[in-house]
């Protein structure tokens, strides 16, 4: 019997007859598959029989936290996902937003935390590879990569090795792909010592009429496997990614995948070439849970069944079982459903790019996923049940108690503002990230108009004058102290960063990194952050179109601080009219927009002075953010301001120092107002603030405009010389500040 016939043979039989051989069930086997006792009972009820080994594997990955979102789904449903700009919200491989003129941005962020801790180079590299596949599987050419990184404390034994490996891995993959890595963020905090976070974001561009989805609609269509061959990579990776670490994890040495960016680059070009024809009905990358989740999702969305013959799967290793092939997480692979008859032309493209191309099955009207291997039926499951039956938990949670407000009186004062500034700017939190982004090719594709180092990166929409701005942000210490305020702050900081370059913020993606959700206080953090994010998105008309959840970032019961990383994108209509934080001209007047109470709780200044973060984080007023940001954008569009920077970590003086360093120009600053302690004024982390500079002749008009709009605005100094001179404090040469700012990471990581 030919392989094709083996599949067709089903036709004559009733589906029920194709029952695979049951596996011998033990408690240990169930536990190994990450299933609870209750979940296994649930599985038995659904199936009405004992599963085969392959079926048990399929259920275990489909029900893993990573694929099923069983702890988070209930709360995720409350997030705002709509807007006139949204073409596709959460639920597909990535979110899609309309940029006008027939162009769409397709973007998503994803975590690769656990693998990156175990094998930093390959873990981070394959994270980048995975997120790019999510984007180009929808028809987009990736045009910008970003990465949000959290490491342990700088002098922790492993930190250097981890930073070096992660950054090199991101660089190796992104650079080879020829996609610029233009931004991100990097934090150091002891609470990530044993659980680093590596979140990779990718933004791509596609024609709005050429977006590809994963719904495999239609019966009798060929199911096609393309890309790399399948090996025994990362089997159980998805359940692994949902497991907590313990001291033995280092010893267990789970399989980590090795990335092959060269093959992915070929896969990208081959897929985009095929997408130029009308051959593709549905396409989905094989990410976590590989062939299992891609086939189930495609079949489920299309309302069809899939019959596959695993003998036809291109294999890298000998003697692979059905279980292994269904669960393999080998990288650089895609599953497609094609129009019948288009296979030869499609194959020719993949041949040209030296990639495997194999028809491994077809869509059916049975509604079942039937997996054949070596003449046996190894799995026979109802697709809809598999897709929808995953448990959904409303886990108990306790909300984080509100912390008290900190004032300058609670913190030992500094007697030297300038010295404090130097310490902040040359420490782990605020020092230059050049050592990192210099390892990333951030200019390839020839469209990078704002490179890393500013508020948001900007790449030109190829062949147009439009600019696509992108950024990632979250302040985990705020989220820890007050999940709700922290969740809001993460969203508004991305919104401010986009605004500060003159972009209209469009939408966000996210990567929700938390500890163990079965602990009520962790679940409370999760719920709180999501409520904050949701409120912020609603207030700013800034919906969430894609995202990812990473739970169990915890070792020996110690969880990471809640880290909902937000990735935002925005649009600049004409890149001739954008803003940057670089001081432009001596004599430009420096204006602070927004109100300063001097909120020092959870501030970097507080940590510097006391050794720790405490109290309530700065409060976020969403309507104020909207009002101030919209005004700043109007000023940029009207070309009335010469430089713009939002005020965030470290406060006002840090923002000004950033602008000075970026330009080499200094500033003369007025003393803090009398009604506020100087350190609270300079280092408070109050939100909804921007520093702008305006040419002297525009000053009065701009101040009047702000006043009329009832937006607090104060002239605080002037761009001048090459020193930072604060009334009543020591002056500081920008060259000296720059040297200290640039020295920290190279010294740490050498």
């Amino acid at each position, binding site marked *: 019997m030919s392989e094709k016939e083996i599949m067709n043979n089903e036709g004559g039989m009733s589906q029920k007859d194709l029952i695979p051989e049951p596996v011998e069930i033990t408690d240990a086997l169930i536990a190994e598959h990450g299933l609870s006792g209750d979940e296994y009972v649930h599985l038995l009820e659904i199936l009405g029989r004992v599963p085969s080994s392959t079926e048990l594997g399929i259920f275990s990955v489909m029900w893993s936290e990573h694929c099923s979102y069983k702890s988070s789904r209930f709360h995720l449903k409350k997030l705002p996902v709509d807007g006139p700009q949204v073409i596709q919200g959460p639920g597909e491989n990535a979110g899609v937003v309309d940029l006008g003129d027939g162009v769409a941005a397709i973007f998503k962020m994803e975590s690769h935390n656990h693998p990156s801790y175990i094998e930093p180079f390959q873990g981070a590299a394959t994270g980048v590879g995975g997120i790019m596949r999510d984007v180009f599987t929808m028809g987009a050419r990736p045009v910008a990569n970003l990465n949000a990184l959290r490491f342990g404390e700088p002098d922790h034994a492993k930190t250097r090795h981890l930073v070096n490996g992660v950054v*090199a891995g991101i*660089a*190796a993959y992104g*650079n*080879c*792909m*020829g996609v610029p890595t233009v931004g991100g963020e990097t934090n150091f905090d002891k609470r990530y010592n044993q659980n680093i976070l590596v979140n990779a974001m990718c933004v791509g561009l596609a024609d709005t009429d050429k977006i590809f989805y994963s719904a495999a609609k239609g019966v009798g269509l060929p199911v096609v496997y393309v890309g790399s061959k399948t090996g025994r990579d990362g089997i159980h990776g998805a359940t692994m990614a949902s497991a907590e670490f313990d001291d033995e994890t280092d010893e267990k040495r789970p399989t980590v995948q090795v990335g*092959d*960016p*060269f*093959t992915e*680059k*070929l896969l990208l070009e081959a897929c985009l070439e095929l997408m130029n024809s009308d051959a593709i009905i549905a396409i989905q990358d094989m990410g976590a849970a590989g062939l299992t989740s891609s086939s189930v999702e495609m079949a489920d969305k299309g309302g069809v069944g899939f019959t596959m013959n695993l003998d036809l799967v291109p294999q890298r290793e000998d003697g692979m079982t059905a279980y292994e092939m269904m669960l393999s997480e080998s990288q650089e692979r895609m599953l497609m459903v094609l129009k019948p008859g288009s296979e030869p032309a499609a194959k020719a493209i993949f041949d040209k*790019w*030296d990639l495997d191309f194999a028809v491994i099955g077809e869509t059916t009207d049975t509604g079942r996923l039937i997996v054949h291997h070596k003449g046996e039926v190894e799995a026979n499951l109802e697709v809809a049940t598999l897709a929808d039956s995953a448990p959904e938990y409303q886990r108990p949670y306790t909300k984080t108690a509100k912390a008290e407000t900190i004032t300058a009186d609670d913190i030992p004062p500094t007697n030297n503002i300038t010295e404090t500034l130097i310490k902040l700017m040359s420490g782990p939190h605020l020092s230059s990230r050049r050592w990192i*982004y*210099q*390892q*990333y*090719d*951030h*200019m*390839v*594709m*020839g*469209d*990078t*108009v704002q*490179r890393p180092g500013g508020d948001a990166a900007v790449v*030109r929409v190829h062949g147009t004058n439009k600019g696509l701005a992108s950024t990632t942000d979250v302040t985990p210490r705020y989220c820890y102290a007050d999940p709700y305020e922290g969740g809001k702050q993460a969203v508004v900081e991305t919104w401010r960063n986009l605004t500060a370059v003159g972009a209209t913020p469009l939408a966000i993606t996210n990567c929700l990194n938390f500890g163990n959700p079965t602990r009520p206080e962790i679940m409370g953090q999760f719920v709180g952050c999501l409520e904050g994010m949701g409120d912020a998105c609603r207030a700013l008309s800034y919906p969430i179109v894609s995202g990812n959840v990473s739970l169990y970032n915890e070792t020996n019961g110690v969880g990471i601080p809640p880290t909902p990383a937000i990735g935002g994108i925005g649009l600049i209509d004409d*890149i*001739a009219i954008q803003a940057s934080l670089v001081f432009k001209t001596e004599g430009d007047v420096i204006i602070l927009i927004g109100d300063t109470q001097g909120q020092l709780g959870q501030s970097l200044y507080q940590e510097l002075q006391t050794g720790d973060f405490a109290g309530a984080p700065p409060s976020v007023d969403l309507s104020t953010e909207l009002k101030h940001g919209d005004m700043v954008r109007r000023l940029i569009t009207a070309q009335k301001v010469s430089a713009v920077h939002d005020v965030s970590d470290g406060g006002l003086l840090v923002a000004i120092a950033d602008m000075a360093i970026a330009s080499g120009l200094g500033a003369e600053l007025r003393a803090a107002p009398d009604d506020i302690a100087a350190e609270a004024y300079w280092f408070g982390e109050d939100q909804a603030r921007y520093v702008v500079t305006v040419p002297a002749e525009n000053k009065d008009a701009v101040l009047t405009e702000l006043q009329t709009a009832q937006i607090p605005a104060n002239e605080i100094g002037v761009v001048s010389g090459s020193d930072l001179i604060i009334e009543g404090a020591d002056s500081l040469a920008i060259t000296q500040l720059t040297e200290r700012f640039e020295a920290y990471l190279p010294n740490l990581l050498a």
Partner: protein
Amino acid sequence: MRSSVIVFPASNCDRDIAVALEQISGSKPDMVWHGETSVPSSDLIVIPGGFSFGDYLRSGAMAAQSPIMKDVISKAKAGTPVLGICNGFQVLVESGLLPGALMRNRDIKFICKDVFLNVERNDTIFTRKYAAGETVKYPVAHHDGNYFASPDVLAEIEDNGQVAFRYASEDGEVSEADNPNGSLNNIAGIYNKELSVLGLMPHPERLISAELGGSDGVLMFESLVEAFA
């Protein structure tokens, strides 16, 4: 100017160079797949930057053995000008069209940033529009740009005036402090003896307009356009 751009699997600056060539010369280059065996007749052959064959084994090594390279080599030997940028430079040394080798950067890391270069001579088809002794800004983006040649080969290159560009400070001073990758004698690019083949690590095609952060690369392409006018 008629130009051809050779495209290898995982070349990734092929589009960038095509954009630059078209912007400056007014005509689109022919894109030539590595599996072809002949390059259409052109004034200029360009080997673009990227990660041909993933930079596996050695950067440029596998590309240098591609079918198309036989014709590139024979056309180059017959006098057709060839420009290799970044990975293209690596391909040119691996294929023997230029002397020396490009090793891992001194600091092992990939490095992407703007650098300053001294244009060593302005009497070649690639540099005729630059001023004599001009210092220009081009970006580098490479992992293996550390130029090496044995002492006698290096002496010969220097004696023949084959050095095209040297890493320098903004003021044109050549010192180790401005050497981004450990290249011998701060060499950023070299010619063949006939001055018809140029390989360089920095990317002139990346700085061709103010919005991209500079336009010092334009004159290289204008030089070529003028040479073939």
